[in-house]
Structure formats: C-alpha cells, structure tokens
C-alpha cells in the first residue's frame, strides 16, 4: 500500500512549489481585471506556507515550529531564470522549523466571516513571496531543477511520505517539451510511493475550468492534454483527508486547467492535505 506514511520529525514530508513568474502572470486572473495572476499566486502560496507553519506549531513555549516538513519554492521566468524564492541554501529546501526566518511580518487587510457576512479586518501575517512577472516560461528548467533538489531529498528520506510538487503556470513551456522532465520527476520515489506532481493552469479568460479530471476530453486542446499527461493521479486518501471525497472522481489526476482563485485554493488544499498526517514526535 502506498501513500500511507504518517509524518513526524523522523519522517518529515516535503512540499515543493514551482511558481511560474513569466511575463503573462501580469494578466488579470479569470478575466476579472481585479487581481493579477502573479498576485493571486503569491498570496495563495503565502497563505499555504502560513497554514503549514500553524500545523507545525505544537507548543507555544518552543522556540520554533516543529520540523514536520521540508519546503521549497522555486520561481521560473525569463530569460531562463530558475531561482529559489524561499531560503536558497545548499539543499534549497527549508525545514518548516526555519520558515519564520525567511518571512517578513506585515499587516494586511483580509476578509473574515463574522457569522453574518464577510468584513475586512487588519491582520498580522507573514510574507515569503512577492509577485513577479517577467519574460519567458522555462518550465523544463524548473522541472529539472526540482529533480535535482528532490533526488537528494528522497535518498535521505526513504521512509517518508513522498514529496509533493505543486506546479502553477499560465502557459506553455518556452524551453522544450516538459513531459520528459515531468516524467523523470515523477519517477523519484520513497518506500511509500512515487513523487506526486500536480499541475494547475491559471486562466486569464474566465472560461470553465477543467477540474481534477479522471480522463482527458476528446476535444481537449493540446496544452490541456499535455498538462494532464504530466500530472500524477490523486491518491484517494489525500482527497479524503482534504475533505473533497465525493467532489473528485476516483482516478482523477492532480490537474486543473483554466483555474480562477477558488480552484487555485482547492488545488493547494488538496496538494497539502498531508498536513493532517502529522503525528507529534
């Protein structure tokens, strides 16, 4: 049985975010003209990292959150730029215990539900990532970079739940066919299963999303088929742990096309559902 391993400090999990920072991320998401794709993406990744930090907080008397996860954020844009956006040490992955050191604290306006409706409240939060949009889409380079980083990680964490790579893009690779480096990345494995590569495509046109499909539609355009092919099947227990059982068909791929903000949030929730597998220790 694969994808069963619990997570603790001896067997940490791993999330790697691959973030498209190409020039088209300047466009508004979903055709709304209110929020740019790059802004929505950086806000969501910041929220996810913050949520992971809270999951790793067991005791307020401890100086740091616990090291339940190793986390990387790799941005790619033009020209041929593939860079770590959080940390950047030798391993390019940051233990969750050290995440606070790589953030700045900001007060931001957030919408909060107060029982009767949403209202804007000022909240202190932590920011790791700022929106960037520049140049081309070296997706192959980013996938190859991820392979180098995670090959080392899986060799050191044979008993851990395998790494989960959350890749968000808005376009096609400008440096070749990404299917080959994606397949090579998915071959990395721990004793608990192969690495999981999930892909999300952000839309600028507000078209209907292709939402975690179990098969490609016959009429699908080449870009959709390509990203579908690059994506791992979602383990059923991950879907259940994220609270999406019944909404996502068995055998669905970890893939969304033409995503707007709600689909982006769903994608991140499902992709980081292993936070519910933490066992203290």
């Amino acid at each position, binding site marked *: 049985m694969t994808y069963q391993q619990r997570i603790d400090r001896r067997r940490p999990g791993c999330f790697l975010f691959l973030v498209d920072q190409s020039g088209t991320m300047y466009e508004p998401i979903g055709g709304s003209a209110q929020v740019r794709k790059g802004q929505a993406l950086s806000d969501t990744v910041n929220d996810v990292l913050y949520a992971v930090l809270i999951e790793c907080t067991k005791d307020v008397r401890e100086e740091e*959150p616990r090291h339940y996860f190793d986390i990387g954020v790799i941005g790619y844009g033009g020209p041929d730029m593939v860079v770590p956006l959080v940390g950047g040490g030798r391993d390019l992955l940051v233990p969750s215990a050290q995440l*606070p050191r790589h953030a700045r604290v900001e007060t931001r306006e957030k919408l909060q539900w107060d029982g009767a409706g949403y209202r804007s409240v000022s909240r202190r939060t932590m920011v790791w990532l700022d929106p960037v949009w520049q140049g081309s889409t070296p997706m192959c380079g980013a996938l190859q970079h991820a392979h180098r980083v995670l090959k080392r990680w899986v060799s050191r964490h044979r008993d851990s739940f395998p790494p989960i790579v959350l890749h968000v893009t808005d376009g096609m690779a400008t440096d070749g066919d990404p299917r080959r480096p994606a397949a090579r990345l998915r071959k990395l494995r721990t004793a608990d299963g192969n690495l999981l590569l999930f892909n999300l495509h952000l839309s600028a046109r507000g078209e209907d999303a292709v939402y975690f499909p179990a098969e490609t539609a016959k009429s699908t355009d080449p870009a959709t088929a390509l990203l579908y092919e690059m994506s791992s099947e979602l383990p059923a227990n991950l879907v259940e742990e994220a609270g999406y059982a019944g909404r996502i068909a068995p055998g669905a791929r970890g893939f969304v096309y033409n995503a707007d903000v709600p689909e982006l949030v769903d994608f991140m929730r499902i992709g980081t559902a292993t936070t519910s597998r933490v066992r203290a*220790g």
Partner: protein
Amino acid sequence: MLTASVLSVPKSAGEPSEDAAALDLARGRIAVCDGASRALASGPWARCLADRFVAAPPDDFGEEALACWVRAAAEEWSAGIRLPAEAPPYLSDAVARGSFATLLGVVVEAAPPGAGSVWWRAVAVGDTCLVALRAGAVVRSFPLDGPEQFTSAPALVPTSAGALPGALSTADVTSGACGVGDVLLVMTDALARWALGRAARGGEVWRFLTEVAPGDFEGEVRLLWRRGELEVDDVTLVRCGVVVGV
C-alpha cells in the same frame, strides 16, 4: 462496585502521550480522550477534558449541556497557554485556532436494589471506543463497531467556541446495563481499530485485552508495532470490571 486499570504506551519515548485517561470509581466515572497530534497543546486539552469529566461531567449529554461544559473546559485550557511577549503572528493564530481532542466519557450508576446490575451511559465525540463484554463476547461497541469506520478525520472536541456547534452535533450517546463479571473496555483509536479488526477473526482479542498483565502490555504493543499490525500511535486502554452488583 467497579474495579479499573489504565494501561498506556506512548508512541515515542521522548514525547509525552497525547492520550489522557481519568477515573473516579467511587462515583462511577471514566473518561478517555485522545489529543489530535497536529493541534497545539492537544495533550493538555485531552487531559483537561478527561479530568473535568470525572470531576464534574456535563449535566446531560445533550448538545446544549455538552457545549456549556466544553466552553468551561476550554477556558481552563486557554488559561494554561502563555504566549510570549512579541509573539509572531503564527503563534497567536495557532492559539486562536486552538486544540482538538476526542472524548469518550462513561457514567456508571446504580440500578434499583436487587437488579444485580449497574447502568451506564456514555457520550462520544470521535473515535475513542467503548466495548462492553459479557462472558467474553461483545454486547456493545460504541461509537464505532468495525475497523472500516475509522477515518483519518475523526470528529473532535475543539477549544474554539466558533467551532463548537458543528463539532458537538456529531456527539453520540448510548446507554446499557452490565452485571457482575461484565467488562467495559475503553480504547483510543489505534488499539480499537486493531481489536475490532481482529475480533472479526475470533474473540481471542477480547480475552487478550481483558487479561493481559499490565507489566506485559507495553511489550505486546511494541511487538504489534514491529509486526506492522498496529498503527504506531499513542495507545490507551482502560479496563473496568463489575465485581459486585450494586
């Protein structure tokens, strides 16, 4: 009259168990709680719930009385959390989100004179289980009765008042009677799941859990862990027997 013993094994040597068991046999009260590993200070929250249940259980097991009782427990838990000055926002938000634990509480009461039995009623939120045995056979398994019913997201009692209404709507309540020689077993999820799975292949598992010597229990649990038969998690077993009809 009741007799009882608590057997527990923490999942890792360097980490205190996040299970908590409390007994007040004179007043017929038993509570076992399992703190959610991923939550802040869940061991203290489980301990708070268990101790308060045996000291002063809810007036009844209806949702309103339970909510009132949990709110008072949550105030006690919160008072024990000391945020450092200049705490970073994630610490404040972790405290605001609060903690979570299962609750299995049993109150045993005297039956009418001459009935030769005791009555018990139990409340459960989550997957800590009570198994009532008579002559070595299961007469009640509560709130779950099969290994397939355990999930990775059991119902939990939260400290946060905002999360209470939804959480306590999942509370299960049951009652029963037992006589001299009957046994009540209360188990946290990993052990209960294993036992209910083994029971499908025969009743020896109940004899094992009823009779295993306290000094042998940890070794048996570790053996099951090594064999991969039992999930490596905190394990707590409370064995309660009726020795004289009340």
